[in-house]
């Protein structure tokens, strides 16, 4: 298919490559995808991502889409959300999912781990106050269980409460009965998830060869999702 022949913006790519760590081929492929999603415009909007058929049955779809428009993920110390993003910002968000290179020092690994966990934290902390409150955590668990119908709501609350208690126990240890645990700060978040080894788990494969177009065209013509949804609705 010749991904190589469509690398028009070499100097730009070099800049992006240094910033995000992707290779030129990967940037090229992602650029193609970006153009495809945004219908050849320069900026991407929420609706463009909403129409991706693969995301349709993802329980945390809204959070994922929000993460793309969250300024905190653009590494520019901004806050709040935007309505549309450019390719550069798209790449920066994607770069959170790059695997760590083979020969990295412990410090670099630690940095990468913090970065990825920061991304997750931002996804949970929707009001941007620096802590994940109980309400926000409950919302997270509810969304995760949103596919399981009515029985999810009460159990979600219970699960979120238990999880919050666990975080408080691990992070703070002892609290007087009238002290109030405000919410999970980023440091606490790091602490409770340090065993997950996020730098090896939160990665996806970025292609160097362009095989995406074939699959996608076919996909968008025959949305097979609907079959499953019909069945699920029936039950």
């Amino acid at each position, binding site marked *: 298919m010749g991904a190589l022949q469509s690398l028009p913006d070499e100097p730009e790519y070099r800049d992006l490559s240094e910033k995000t760590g992707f290779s030129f081929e990967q940037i090229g492929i992602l650029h193609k995808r970006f153009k495809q999603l945004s219908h050849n415009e320069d900026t991407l909007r929420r609706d463009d991502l909403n129409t991706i058929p693969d995301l349709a049955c993802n329980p945390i779809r809204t959070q994922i889409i929000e993460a793309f428009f969250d300024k905190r993920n653009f590494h520019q110390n901004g806050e709040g959300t935007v309505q549309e993003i450019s390719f550069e910002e798209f790449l920066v968000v994607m770069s959170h999912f790059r695997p760590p290179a083979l020969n990295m020092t412990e410090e670099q690994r630690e940095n990468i781990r913090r970065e990825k966990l920061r991304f997750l934290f931002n996804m949970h902390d929707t009001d941007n106050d620096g802590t994940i409150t109980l309400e926000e955590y409950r919302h997270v668990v509810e969304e995760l269980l949103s596919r399981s119908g009515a029985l999810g709501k009460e159990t979600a609350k219970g*699960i979120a409460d238990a999880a919050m208690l666990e975080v408080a126990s691990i992070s703070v240890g002892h609290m007087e009965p009238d002290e109030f645990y405000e919410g999970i700060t980023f440091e606490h978040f790091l602490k409770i998830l340090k065993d997950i080894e996020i730098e090896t788990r939160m990665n996806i494969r970025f292609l160097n060869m362009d095989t995406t177009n074939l699959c996608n065209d076919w996909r968008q013509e025959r949305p097979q999702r609907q079959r499953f949804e019909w069945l699920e609705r029936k039950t």
Partner: protein
Amino acid sequence: MKLGFHLIPRLSGVVPESCLLIVVGLLVGGLIKVIGEEPPVLDSQLFFLCLLPPIILDAGYFLPIRPFTENVGTILVFAVIGTLWNAFFMGGLLYALCQIESVGLSGVDLLSCLLFGSIVSAVDPVAVLAVFEEIHINELVHILVFGESLLNDAVTVVLYNLFEEFSKVGTVTVLDVFLGVVCFFVVSLGGVLVGAIYGFLAAFTSRFTSHTRVIEPLFVFLYSYMAYLSSEMFHLSGIMALIACGVVMRPYVEANISHKSYTTIKYFLKMWSSVSETLIFIFLGVSTVAGPHAWNWTFVITTVILCLVSRVLGVIGLTFIINKFRIVKLTKKDQFIVAYGGLRGAIAFSLGYLLSNSHQMRNLFLTAIITVIFFTVFVQGMTIRPLVELLAVKRKKESKPSINEEIHTEFLDHLLTGVEGVCGHYGHYHWKEKLNRFNKTYVKRWLIAGENFKEPELIAFYRKMELKQAIMLVESGQLPSALPSTISMQNIQPRAIPRVSKKREEEIRRILRSNLQNNKQKMRSRSYSRHTLFDADEEDNVSEVRLRKTKMEMDRRVSVMERRMSHYLTVPANRESPRPGVRRVRFESDNQVYSADSVPTVHFVQPSPLSTPDAVSLEEEVPKRPSLKADIGEPRGNASDNHQGELDYQRLARCLSDPGPNKDKEEDDPFMSC
């Protein structure tokens, strides 16, 4: 023997258990020979039909699925290509060796050498399990070596049978080679298919066993063994069938069977596999003493050296290729442990033993095989632990299942699937998600009894955790203190709840007490009966257990209060801070923690004027010092000593005179669980 081994910690730190067992076998065999009797040799039939299946079933049933599926490509490459490489490399070089005149083995032809190579090349699951269990290495390396040792059985079976047939016939044509390749696919895929069919049958059967809980474990064992036998009968790979059966069966069976059956299965499997393993190693030792030997220095030494060399070369070469396709690359340390962990064991010995006596080299081969086994188990087994520590390889993190990790694991799965969707290509997570959905919509509804099939994993995990805690509570009389902390629900819940009138409180206490006594009665009588199991419904009903848990705590608290009844009322106010002293929150007993000697107290507190009245529940708290902070009708004994604030009668008066707004809900609340 095993007991003694584990009681001497220094010994178990140096020598892996398998080594000791072989030594014991040697001693026993030597003893028998000295006596003059014929020592029993490891009969291959016995080995393959009785001793090996429990170990493999144990391994397959408890195989950690997530790391396995994430690395299945790597594992398959190592298992298939690695074993092939080992077999041909060793066979070829040994043949070249035998051509040298001075060795004196010129009678050995290529096919025999290749046959020998194929026997010795396979990494042995029994030995790997025995050694790796004790070094607690990180999950990735463990699953790589272990998975490889399980999956290379198909290759071994095919190569062994092929070469044995060929060496009888004498000539090999290209067609034969091609058929050999086809045979490999048939054997491995056929084995997996047979195992999967039996797995589904077992899952389907377990759906209907809700009335006959006692024989549930039997089905699991029976179906697995039949899978093994069936595939061995058709000369398919029995080990792969067993693994497939265990893996397929497990999620459905566990959703269907009772908790007791699950425990039974777990312990029986562990017990059988432990016994088998012990017997295998002892027999190995005995057979060494007993068996006919033909020693040829050059051949044996070369075999051992070639084993090591080919393994190292194979691992390095394959990793080089594999790393191009992996997201998370294998480091040099990982590669070293994978190479070093390639132990040979009893399967090689039994296969060698199975060689018919017409092979003129049989004794030589057996001797060489035994030497290789001894070398790998003793030398590599003993030195792997210090090497792991020396190289500072990542160890397994011993952590309890944490609900936060579980939530985030699932969250990550969805997140990565979503991002892959945005990226537009179908990666690992996409297919996993598809399989999950297919599983949920079609398969689970057939194989899981009742309404359970709709339950997502997170909820199932949470319920399991609760059940475990509940059972521990019932057994020990108190909640397990997972972490020494005094944090309770109130610390994280910002809401305050209105007060309860004294009369109401008395009523509640009375009701609780009576209910609790009933329950305690019932529980005690049941636990001592040997012939009746717990009622399945009650046992499986988590909310019921939670209820019991709640009531037990209530009972304790109530009895405490009873003992030191007094009408002296004091009020919480141990802080001068403007916020209300203590807040009452919904009773959540799951992660409540308190130590045995502290006195749990019941609090009734005034709410802050701004908070909205909410559902009432009784709350529990651990006072750090034995002071009782807020008590109505609580002991005056030691409270006054450590009482930390001033009393505020007015607040109490207001509190008591106002009946709680949610009077009707009060009674239900202690029994309600989230």
